[in-house]
């Protein structure tokens, strides 16, 4: 029973990926089960296409910036939530941190369009706004990863031990808390990067033509040759796989 479900799940997950890879190397593919001919030209075309290269760079910029912003915000936030657990402040903070997960990105996106399309804040379509939106959207994932690790570590005891040895609260945070959160910070950031790289809804609503992200440009590829669309998707998949690989190898090391 469980085996059967696993096999069906595996087929539905892996078959489309396999077809994408096959399709990306096929020269023509129309109305047949498999493409005919073998070629690498779709990848070459992708490489020379300035809009894809630009989108790739834009996606990386947004993802890396979201990671940096999230690190600066999430580590202190998770630490504060851990220490104030059970208090009223914690419920409010929890709500704020969990909301982007519960609220559909399209809702968030429309909200931004309304707010940032005014004369007071005419930032719709700018890269900083897109980065901010991605940071807000991914923050709870990182915060929750860190929070789980904080609880698991029983950090209050380590902090007390450090304090008796002469560590000020700041030295405890830098010398004890942050190093012990390193592993979960890295794996959390890989998740943030993966979500940001693959995010479509929010980016599609908020980007201008100048700084479209990779998934947004990818959509255009679907209106052209099938092989080209497949190759473009495979690149996105590689990005995601690289993130997953880094994440799992970090966890293994720890």
């Amino acid at each position, binding site marked *: 029973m469980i085996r059967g479900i696993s096999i069906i799940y595996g087929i539905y997950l892996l078959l489309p990926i396999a077809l994408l890879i096959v399709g990306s190397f096929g020269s023509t593919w129309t109305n047949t089960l498999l493409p005919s001919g073998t070629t690498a030209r779709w990848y070459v075309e992708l490489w020379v296409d300035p809009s894809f290269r630009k989108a790739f760079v834009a996606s990386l910029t947004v993802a890396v910036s979201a990671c940096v912003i999230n690190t600066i915000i999430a580590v202190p936030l998770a630490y504060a939530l851990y220490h104030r657990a059970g208090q009223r402040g914690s419920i409010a903070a929890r709500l704020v941190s969990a909301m982007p997960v519960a609220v559909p990105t399209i809702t968030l996106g429309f909200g931004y369009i309304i707010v940032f399309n005014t004369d007071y804040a005419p930032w719709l379509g700018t890269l900083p706004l897109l980065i901010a939106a991605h940071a807000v959207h991914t923050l709870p994932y990182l915060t929750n990863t860190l929070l789980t690790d904080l609880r698991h570590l029983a950090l209050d005891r*380590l902090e007390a031990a450090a304090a008796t*040895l002469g560590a000020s609260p700041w030295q405890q945070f830098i010398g004890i808390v942050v190093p012990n959160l390193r592993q979960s910070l890295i794996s959390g950031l890989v998740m943030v990067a993966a979500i940001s790289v693959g995010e479509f809804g929010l980016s599609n609503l908020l980007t201008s033509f100048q700084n479209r992200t990779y998934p947004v440009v990818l959509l255009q590829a679907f209106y052209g040759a099938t092989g080209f669309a497949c190759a473009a998707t495979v690149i996105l998949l590689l990005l995601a796989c690289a993130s997953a690989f880094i994440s799992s190898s970090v966890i293994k090391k720890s």
Partner: protein
Amino acid sequence: MSLLLDHITYTYPGTTHGLHDVSLRVDTGELVAVIGPSGSGKSTLLKLVAGLETGHTGSILLNGENVAGKPMHQRNIGMVFQQYALFPHLSVVDNVAYGLKLRKVPLNERQNRARDLLALTGLAEYAERSISRLSGGQQQRVALARALAIDPLALLLDEPLAALDASIRGHLRDQIRTIQKRFNATTLLVTHDQEEALTMADKVAVLKDGRLLQFSTPEEIYRAPANKAVAEFVGLSTILPATVIARDLIDAGFARLATATGHRQVGQSVFALIRPENIVPTPSSDATNRISGHIGTQRYLGSIYRYDFLADGAALPLLVESHQIAGNAIALPPEHITLLDS
């Protein structure tokens, strides 16, 4: 270096639990054990000294200086926690050297000092290891080395052996005591294990419900407990309710017993404390306080037997420890019956 607790009162916010007017003194190089049942306030006492809890009245004087209002990290107190609380991201030697690093001791010097301390605790070859690869006993020794590395004004041990197997507890107990003496560390030990307290401490403080019941040497705590609560908590015993019926004579219901009644008046209710090892299992026929009865539950402990003796007409069994099991009579030597006021 001394630690003086002077009329400490502390209540946990919103409760009546805490400490009520506790005073005790730990002199230089002394080890004072604080014992008591759970909820007695012994851990609270330690937390107040360390600065983990604040807001008490009375004063805590460390080397003559009041530490109230001083944050934890400025008190210079070494603490060993029940769950070790070693830093998982640092090696053994770096754990020990952590406090020295905070004190800006140069790298070489602090590494050498940390290694010396590890050698002293028998862990020299584990210096480079990760904490997770040490046993519980080894981790606790690292924790002790780490606490001593900073040359603390006082050393606090919070149930240091409670998380360990009984088999290594005895050995580690001796080792901690040896190292503590060698460093002449002014030490406060909190434990629920009375055997640990009696074997390790120079003085023992017995707490119950946040009050200090008695503070004296282990021998005195055992031989002359201040009241019934101390007697019940420290050591095994039989405590019989009785009444003074004449000078140096009490009535325990099932028998009249000769013992020194001191200043007590005739008619006064008392408790008679009898330690199991002091009961004579094979008394001569004319022995004082000879009591007849029969044997109840027996336990063989290897070196001795511990068993209940059910005296004729008695409601409570008398606990006896001896090399040989008694027959149908025992004797309670008058000098070994301690009277406690009820």
